[in-house]
């Protein structure tokens, strides 16, 4: 017997599992990635073996990526089995691998931020706390920018949760249609939507204050198709990932082992 049937439980999982969850997974898997080698001093014997620093760096990144894929593959299988058992047969199960890919890529954006801070500071504490600061900063600033000022376009190009898109109209209340975050964090769900509803229109709402700042109204700040939004988020994620990794790689190559641990 199944409880309330919900054929979209699996794709719903990809929509819910973002933001702080993926950030924490990124921190847990990568806070020690390079900084840990510096902290424990095991970097010294490692870097004096005949492997180039490039190989060591690449190995660290590939290992982080594979760890994340493994975590999410396990989680996805668990969610699929659980959903089928509890909530009945599921739609679009074939898209689950796409969601898994998006989720991993989204997490890698944060992971590369953690790796960069760890490489620069050689401290896993700074890596974890520093990237948490960035995460909180982006989230708070993003919320203020998007909801109060309607500057959603800034959020299209920032990492994190991004702007909230709605298939319903901004002006009607209560809002109809579905809402979801369109930032890099939600890449798993966005890629699924890209396949399912590429031409659906998403509205991004803002709040506008009247003269004197007393009365506000909600208005449509911008609109885009799901295809545009999803591909843009994908491109933004790849650019951030690449940029953060290139800077970390450069920092790692330049690093010197001064302290005798």
């Amino acid at each position: 017997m199944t409880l309330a049937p919900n054929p979209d439980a699996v794709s719903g999982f990809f929509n819910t599992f973002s933001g702080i969850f993926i950030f924490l997974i990124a921190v847990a898997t990568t806070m020690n990635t390079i900084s840990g080698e510096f902290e424990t001093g095991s970097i010294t014997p490692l870097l004096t073996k005949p492997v180039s620093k490039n190989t060591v760096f690449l190995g660290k990144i590939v290992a982080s990526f594979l760890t994340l894929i493994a975590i999410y593959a396990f989680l996805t299988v668990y969610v699929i089995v659980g959903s089928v058992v509890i909530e009945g047969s599921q739609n679009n199960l074939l898209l689950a691998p796409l969601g898994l890919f998006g989720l991993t890529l989204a997490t890698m954006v944060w992971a590369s931020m953690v790796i960069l801070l760890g490489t620069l500071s050689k401290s896993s504490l700074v890596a974890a706390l520093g990237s948490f600061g960035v995460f909180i900063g982006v989230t708070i600033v993003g919320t203020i920018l998007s909801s109060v000022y309607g500057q959603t376009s800034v959020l299209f190009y920032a990492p994190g949760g991004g702007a909230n898109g709605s298939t319903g109209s901004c002006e009607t209340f209560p809002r109809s249609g579905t809402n979801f975050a369109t930032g890099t964090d939600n890449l798993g769900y966005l890629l699924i939507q890209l396949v399912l509803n590429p031409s659906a229109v998403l509205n991004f709402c803002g709040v506008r204050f009247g003269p004197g700042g007393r009365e506000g109204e909600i208005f449509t700040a911008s609109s885009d198709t799901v295809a545009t939004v999803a591909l843009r988020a994908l491109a933004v994620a790849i650019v951030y990932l690449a940029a953060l990794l290139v800077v970390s790689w450069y920092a790692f190559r330049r690093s010197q082992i001064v302290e005798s641990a």
Partner: protein
Amino acid sequence: MDTHVIQTENLTKSYGTRIAVNHLNLTVEAKQIHGFLGPNGAGKTTTIKMLVGLLRPDSGSLKILGMNAAGDKPRIRERIGYMPELPKFPKHLTGEELLDVYGRMYNIPKETRRKRIPELLKMVGLEGRGRDRIGKYSKGMQQRIGIAQALLNDPELVILDEPSIGLDPVGMVEVRDMVKEIVKGGQTVFFSSHLLAEVQQICDHVSIINNGNMLFTGTLDEVASKAGPSRRLVLEVQKASDSILHALKALSFATVNTNDNTYTLHLKTKDDVRAEISRAVSAAGGVILRMQEEGGGLEDAFMSLVGKEAE
């Protein structure tokens, strides 16, 4: 073929305004056991870290096995073995696993690794402990596994940074024997130490460094002769007398201090003058109970070079 295994020219490295290594010219020839001596903070580890590519020199040139060695040079690292000062290895690996992982980095074939790893563990005295995690190793055992990993690739040049630090006296002797063993295989050993006795016992060449400056480099004999002025003979006689003192004072090659029935002669010569002294004392009616040479060794040379008064 170039016999310079290590050759640096004006090698310099600063940390901020502090100059750690100052225009260092160091040459180590093949098959030497070359001791690198200096007080703590003299720049030994900084120099070694530049040799193995962990630090970038600010200026000067650095050649290892004839190749330019500044920067990230895996092809040089293939041919050298290095043990860091107080080495730290991943704690979750066992000794065998660690050597196996490092062996794979050296591209050592599996069969060779399987044979070589137990041999090395036995050589460094970790037989039977290879399956224990490194996290459970004592300081001395970590030092030993550090030596084992430095010899894994049968290197042409072995660089050891303070190999006997943290070891008990028995361990120190064992390390000394290991170093002697390595050189029998025709390898070059360059090792830093602040223990003079250790260096004196195993090295044929020494370089002495202080405040980043090279004070002396050459053979042990050369360094001993540098310390010539402080060579002393301690003479114990049965009964002190003025005539003995007179006879000793008459010797042209020494000055004399007296203390009860012990005379200390500060020699101005490098020759063996014991027979002459013995004759002089006998002629003055004295009986020698003990005659012992002191100083003139590495310790005195070291002390005079680093500008401290030898006791």
